[in-house]
């Protein structure tokens, strides 16, 4: 049975999420601006494993005290189907987007029992001039580049306990107000550690269902939540609904995803009603596909 919080109806349903592999990487630079630039580029085109190979995003900014080289940095997270699937993603994204960024360096951003190559491939850019320095249990590669040296740690941790696809669907009758509310929710989620919202600005307007009428399509538009199809399909939307926006959450642990959903739900129910948010719900497949279920009523 649904409940109403501050004028927003919260459906009695759950978000269905899947087990994934996840890793963390710290990117530093001479300034936070350049660390952010490298991190933004490295996590670009990383919205969905379906088409991008990995789901990527910025977890948080790091102060100089929190980085191995005492410079400002950014921690990014990458999620994929398996540790093996993350290997080419790390190689290409770090090799093309971080190695190339002025003043950058790259370090392990996750401690875990299992590890995955970080600098193992990019170091070969050094063409034999690269050298390594092992300090404690970490090996750092020094690759000569045109602005000095690109330093990259050999490995980073990888977890197979990560979760992808935590989600919430924000339903309303004012598209601008809905977007503002979703932005606030993404801002609240960004304060939770170990999670990312991989879609543009953390928000998806093209929620999908599994499969399509066309062969070769893994996913297609979620017609039940498309307001312009109301009346022509078995719609999930009421007569006053003008738009629906989704927030997808990936996290290194199930607990982090639950915390992020809690933060997002709180933000939406706190200020949503005055901006035209009428309802909040979540996407699932009947509970048969995903191992992780996040019931909205438990997170309010």
């Amino acid at each position, binding site marked *: 049975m649904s409940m109403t919080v501050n004028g927003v109806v919260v459906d009695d349903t759950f978000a269905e999420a899947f087990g994934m592999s996840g890793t963390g990487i710290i990117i530093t630079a001479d300034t936070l601006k350049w660390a952010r630039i490298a991190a933004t580029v490295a996590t670009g085109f990383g919205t969905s494993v379906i088409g991008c190979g990995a789901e990527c995003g910025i977890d948080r900014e790091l102060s100089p005290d929190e980085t*191995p080289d005492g*410079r400002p940095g950014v921690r990014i997270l990458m999620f994929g189907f398996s540790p093996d699937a993350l290997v080419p993603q790390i190689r290409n994204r770090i090799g093309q987007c971080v190695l190339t960024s002025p003043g950058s360096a790259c370090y392990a951003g996750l401690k875990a029992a299992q590890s995955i190559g970080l600098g193992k491939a990019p170091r070969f850019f050094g063409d034999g*001039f690269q050298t390594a*320095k*092992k300090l404690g249990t970490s090996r*750092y590669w020094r690759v000569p580049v045109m602005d000095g*040296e690109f*330093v990259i740690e050999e490995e980073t941790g990888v977890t197979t306990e990560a979760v992808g696809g935590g989600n919430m669907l924000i339903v309303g009758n004012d598209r601008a107000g809905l977007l503002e509310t979703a932005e606030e929710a993404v801002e609240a989620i960004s304060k939770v550690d170990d999670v990312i919202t991989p879609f543009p600005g953390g928000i998806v307007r093209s929620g999908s269902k599994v499969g399509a009428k066309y062969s070769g399509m893994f996913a297609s538009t979620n017609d039940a939540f498309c307001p312009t199809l109301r009346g022509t399909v078995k719609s999930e939307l009421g007569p006053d609904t003008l738009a629906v926006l989704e927030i997808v959450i990936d996290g290194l642990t199930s607990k982090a995803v639950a915390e992020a959903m809690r933060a997002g739900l709180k933000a939406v129910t706190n200020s949503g009603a005055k901006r035209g948010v009428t309802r909040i719900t979540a996407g699932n497949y009947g509970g048969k596909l995903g191992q992780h279920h996040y019931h909205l009523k438990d997170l309010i």
Partner: protein
Amino acid sequence: MSGFTLRLKAPATERINLAGITPARLASLSSHEIGSLNVGIEKGGLALGDAFDISGSAGDTLTIEGSGAALDFVGGGLDSGSIRIIGDVGAYAARKMTGGKLEIRGNAGNYLGSGTTGGRIYVSGNAGDNLGGAIAGDRFGMLGGLAIIEGNVGHRAGEKMRRGIVIVRGKTGEGTGTRMIGGTIWAEGGIGPTPGLMMRRGTLIGPSVERLLPTFVDCGKHDLVIIRILARYLKGVLGDLAPKPMPLFVRKIAGDMAAIGRGEILLPAS
């Protein structure tokens, strides 16, 4: 912090070999077996109990008192726990040590830390020649771990050293880093003459170098990220014992160009 204490009964008249005398090994033996351990190098042997007064009980520390330069291989094979020595030690201290802590409150002889792969060595005085160096028959010298020498060290420190960090508060002698393959030697008091003969890789750091080989080349003044990482790492593991950080800009001198030239001497940039 219980453990055994060994006190030398009388000044040694022969070399004493303490390889394998570690807290863990003593804890696994009966008092009779401990006293019977052979620490001599001559034909008749020398029982540990004949050379030392043994007191205390099994634990993760071992204290050696009244030590002298005739005690070789002190801390040899140490893998856990700590050994504290009051006095000087002879050659090969910390030989093939893999973990734990060896604290020498005195001077150390030649080949301190040869074949060491892990753990921490602290010497309050000076160390002899070939610190972290390879002994005859060994392929490499020091292979890991961390050594701190408060005083000066002798010639050819780090010969064929492959990994690990040596911090020398004083000066290093001639030929520091000869045939070095990797690792770091940081000499806060300065690097002695002609370092790095046939050095392949590795890093020598200091405020100055006495005389360079002609096969070392000046690469100029640089702000190296690895120096920041090294300084932060050492501060994290050593606290107040960490060396004073280098200035932001260092002068990199590469060599030995007669070998592959991937080694480096880092000096403060003027």
